[in-house]
């Protein structure tokens, strides 16, 4: 009992334990913040990578792609391990938006199938409601006649539907003077006009969805050369924008319909010509560059990859002109990036653990100083019957109390800071013009702001154990004190 009384008295009466607890607080806080941000960063990266690639990818590893993809998709659809599969073309092109030419990654997709595999529909940023909310946020009632008619027009449009059908509104076709005007969906960070407000919302008036753009792509030969044809920029109407959350993708990717891109890249079916240039009546197979596959619920990634690989081999056996195809999981595709971030997380955590060792040494030093200062108390306690173990326990308990106090405060502060990191960043940017998180560097537009309870508890327990370890030497020294010498201590 006297141990608890003394621990509580020593904690309240001295400045040194406050500093030791402060060191533990800061270290606990630092490690939790680093683990939360880096871990959250890695989790976001993994989730985004998986969301954008499906679970398993079948690819020829070339821009000219591979034929018989529908046969392959039928074979994959028959697999119990697969829930859905969709073909895509991944290529590059030049997007002319206003006066700017942007190099972009162009993906040709079948919207319904693509949605089943990667949740494309959910990534479409502008819904009619969001558009109206953004409008209402900007314009205070009463609205003038023009504003009201603009709002009414917005309310009539189903922007998600446009993004799914890739069929622009009739007025846009009329304005462009072509019935065959195609639609395009841009990454939300492509248009330099798109700016987020403090709440992270994009401004309706700066959106590019009413813009007309042109897209130029290069059809390639199987040898990798450019097909000797006149390449013309093709006009597109922007019908929506998408936000994947992965900055790099949102700033560089555009979606068009698969058949549109197949035509532009000359990967659609066309009639073969003989040596003299006459039609042979034989058609080529349309091609895609990848097939993305989503796993059925509960199917492990590797099991799906093996099953898909089996289906690929079957189709390949039927077609001698099928190029070699690679089957990989989304983790394998993004291995370089993921392992780089994983290593970065490990390295940063290691550095902070080293810093935390300093806190352990500080707690140890503080307790040693307290033992020196309390030498006479140790003698008194021994004289009135305290055992060596009891004395050791006073100082171990003292270290434990410092650890618990420091860890609890540190975890609490870390929770507050991590949960408000983006607000803190906005505040810093508003007052000092400094942004600690650059989305162009870190892929994501927001700092990960979630503390995992298991991580926080593990770090807190680690901090407490470290403090007890730091107190061990002092406790041992205290227990070994000769009571007579201790009583004579000045």
């Amino acid at each position: 009992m006297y141990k608890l009384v003394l621990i509580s008295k020593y904690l309240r009466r001295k400045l040194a334990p406050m500093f030791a607890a402060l060191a533990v607080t800061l270290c606990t806080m630092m490690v939790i913040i680093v683990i939360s941000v880096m871990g959250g960063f890695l989790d976001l990266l993994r989730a985004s990578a998986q969301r954008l690639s499906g679970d398993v990818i079948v690819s020829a590893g070339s821009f000219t792609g591979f034929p018989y993809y529908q046969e392959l998709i039928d074979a994959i659809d028959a697999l119990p391990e697969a829930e859905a599969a969709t073909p895509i073309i991944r290529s590059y092109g030049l997007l002319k938006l206003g006066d700017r030419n942007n190099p972009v990654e162009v993906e040709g997709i079948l919207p319904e199938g693509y949605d089943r595999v990667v949740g494309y529909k959910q990534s479409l940023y502008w819904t009619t409601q969001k558009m109206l909310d953004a409008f209402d946020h900007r314009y205070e009632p009463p609205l003038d006649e023009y504003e009201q008619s603009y709002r009414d027009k917005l309310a009539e449009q189903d922007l998600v539907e446009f993004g799914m059908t890739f069929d622009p509104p009739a007025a846009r076709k009329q304005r462009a003077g072509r019935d065959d005007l195609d639609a395009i969906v841009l990454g939300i960070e492509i248009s330099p006009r798109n700016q987020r407000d403090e709440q992270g919302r994009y401004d309706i008036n700066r959106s590019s969805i009413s813009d007309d753009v042109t897209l130029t792509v290069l059809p390639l030969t199987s040898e990798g050369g450019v097909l000797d044809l006149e390449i013309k920029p093709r006009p597109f109407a922007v019908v929506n924008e998408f936000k994947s959350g992965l900055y790099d993708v949102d700033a560089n990717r555009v979606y068009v319909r698969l058949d549109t891109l197949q035509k532009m890249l000359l990967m659609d079916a066309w009639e073969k010509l003989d040596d003299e240039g006459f039609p042979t009546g034989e058609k080529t197979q349309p091609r895609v560059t990848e097939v993305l596959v989503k796993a059925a619920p509960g199917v492990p990634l590797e099991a799906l990859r093996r099953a898909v690989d089996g289906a690929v081999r079957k189709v390949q056996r039927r077609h001698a002109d099928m190029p070699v195809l690679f089957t990989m999981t989304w983790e394998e595709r993004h291995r370089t990036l993921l392992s780089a971030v994983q290593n970065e997380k490990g390295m940063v955590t290691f550095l902070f653990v080293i810093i935390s060792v300093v806190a352990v040494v500080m707690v140890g030093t503080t307790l040693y100083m307290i033992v020196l200062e309390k030498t006479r108390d140790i003698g008194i306690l021994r004289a009135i019957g305290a055992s060596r173990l009891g004395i050791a326990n006073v100082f171990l308990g003292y270290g434990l109390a410092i650890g618990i106090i420091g860890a609890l405060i540190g975890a609490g502060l870390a929770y507050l800071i991590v949960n408000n990191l983006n607000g803190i960043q906005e505040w810093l940017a508003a007052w000092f013009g400094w942004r600690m998180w650059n989305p162009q560097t870190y892929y994501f537009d927001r700092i990960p702001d979630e503390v995992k309870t298991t991580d926080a508890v593990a770090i807190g327990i680690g901090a407490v154990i470290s403090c007890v370890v730091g107190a061990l030497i002092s406790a041992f020294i205290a227990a070994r004190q000769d009571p007579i010498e201790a009583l004579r201590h000045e």
Partner: protein
Amino acid sequence: MSKLIASNLHRRFREGGQDLHVLRGVDLDVRDREWLAILGRSGSGKSTLLHLLGGLDRPTEGSVAFNGDDLFKLPGGKLDRYRNAHVGFVFQFYHLLPELNALENVLVSSMIGSSAFAWPGRKRAARQRAAELLGRVGLAERLRHRPNKLSGGERQRVAIARALMNAPDVLLADEPTGNLDADTSASIIELFRSLHAAGQTIVMVTHDDAVASAADRQVTLVEGRLSTSAG
């Protein structure tokens, strides 16, 4: 009847490369309810003898028997228990715990003798006894004062109350008046006298003949050996 029997106690220290033979075969019998004063010059080994009787130090040779048991053959836990329950120390420099108030300083020896589980059941009675003891030594109004708010005499009274808290068989006082003025010393001696009258066995170390004269019996340590001065 004897409370404590010291037989052939030797205590050597090694300091600065020199062998100091402080106690050279001390035999001492502390009788029940007696007040024994141990006299001697500074450095004669009086405190060392008191520490050995209280089980705070170990002799180089010899034994101290309490209720027939050799203290220095007891396991560590039992020796701690002996210091807590059977003897009470009073030191020249009071040796109070500065973070605790007067009441807590007295209570602490009772806490040491009680486990954390048993303490809630004993706490009320222990607090009552501690308050009574402090009242008995004239500090009823100083229960919540910390040592730095008390005078030297008051601190020594708290130390005496602490020593008496577990109703020890023997009170061991090491120069209890050595750090006090004459009036305060007289009041402390008066307190010892009343404790002795109530049946408390006291062993007191002092270099002051006047203080020693209050005791029933005086022995003097000369060159590490005891000689009886008075009876």
